């Protein structure tokens, strides 16, 4: 017995969510790098 292949229907809502996920991921990536940079800098200055 075969099943109807699953098709993902793209709506405006799902596209907007996709856009938000993309921008969120890119922004979080940069924020994480900045925070690591700050943490390492603070640690080195505190140790020296």
């Amino acid at each position, binding site marked *: 017995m075969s099943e109807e292949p699953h098709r993902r229907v793209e709506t405006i809502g799902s596209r907007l969510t*996709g856009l938000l996920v993309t921008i969120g991921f*890119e922004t979080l*990536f940069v924020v994480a*790098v*900045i925070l690591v940079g700050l943490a*390492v800098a603070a640690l080195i*200055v505190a140790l020296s």
Partner: protein
Amino acid sequence: MLIRPVAEDFRIIGFFMGRVFAIFTVASLVPLLWAALAREWHPMSSFALMAGCYAALAAIGLRSSPKVRRLDWSHGMTVVALTWALAPLVGSIPLLLSGHWSGPLDSYFDAMSGLTTTGLSLVHDLDHLASSINFWRHFLHFLGGQGIILAALSLFAAGGGLTLYHGEAREERIMPSVTSTARFIWGVAIVHLVGGVVALTLVGWVTLGFSPMRSAFHGLMIFFAGFDTGGFAPQSTSLGYYHSGIFEAVTAVLMVAGAMSFGVHYALWRRNPGSVLRNLETRTILGSLGFTLVLTIVGLAVTGVYSSISGLARAGTFQLLSAHTGTGFATVSSAELRGWGGLEYGGIAIAMALGGMGSSTSGGVKALRIGLTLKAIGNQVRRVLLPDGAVVGTGYFQGSRKRLTPELAQSVMAVSLLYVALFLLGAGVGMAYGYSLQHALFESVSAGANVGLSVGVVDPTMMPAVLKLVFMLQMWAGRLEFVAVFALIGFLLAWVRGK
């Protein structure tokens, strides 16, 4: 034995090159229109000349009418390699005629740097360049980064598009067909174009006090150079001109977006960030970014170049992101960069060499190759340590579960080694002209990995002509990831020595 190409081979190559030059003809109308609106009549006439040259090349190619309009692998690679060499030559006409470049070699250098999204420049007095010429420099980043071949694929679907797609060093097919993949890639670019330009314009207008028009101009230029990981900037002091942490942060987001593979964009667009975090490539780039960031920050702290923690972290993280994504924006001058010590210098150079993700606008060895190389070495070590007959897993996750075959490991390591050879070539020639190993290697990696950060070797007044040619070769071969270049060499050898 090499088989000499026949007239039909040349007709096929000419025909497909004609298609790509037709796209360039249309693209060159954009700066022409810009110059007309800005009432820059001298640049406008040079853009008209350039459009005419592209149109002539397109007409010659399209008139060759081959019997079979389908590309095989060798033809496709040759088309890509030749197009990427000839297109910037014609594209350099407006730069040369503007009088801001010393000669044809310098303007060709900049057009090659623009199209290959490198960002090294030999321009004189950038701050007084006509706006339309400045626009063309950045638009070259957009055309090259998005892949002019991709545009041709989107418009001319039939005829062996897959070889052209691979020729531009793109391997991922995220959609059922190359054409739909090409359209998705352009869709991602357009969405980021709108969002990025609006964000940068608002930052320039609201926080920097620029007029709305000036802010939009800078936003558009920085978007082209940031998202396409190019590195040209409308001002000679690059991103340092803006003196704005918010502007740098928005630009950093665009650089990261540009360095992400289109497979990752597709997974995020499909609201599946979990799969992105499982990817070998994502994990590798997070690891290499962390390693080079610690190296750079520790180096800067030890050298004591910056007095405050925030200043140190801001300069270090931005320069590192710019290097690792292959963008080449600078918030510090070449002279200041030369003053950086060994550790931070090494961190930035390693980041430039490693580059961003595969199938992105970024250059360098690329994170997936690094990840697969490390995995292959790890598997080899495990085979030695484990008892005979023990099974060593060769699977890895990249979009889906895949197997690291010996053939794949071999080809990944071969390309990585070719990059090392390419970096050493430029460094060797630079040293022969009297530059120090540190400076020659840094600049060579910057050219070969299509980054654009400079410690002053690329200079319009002092750089030797041979070194300019070598760096152009590095930008071209590095952008095409060697395969198309070797195919062109093979084609030429067969033409000369074949039977």
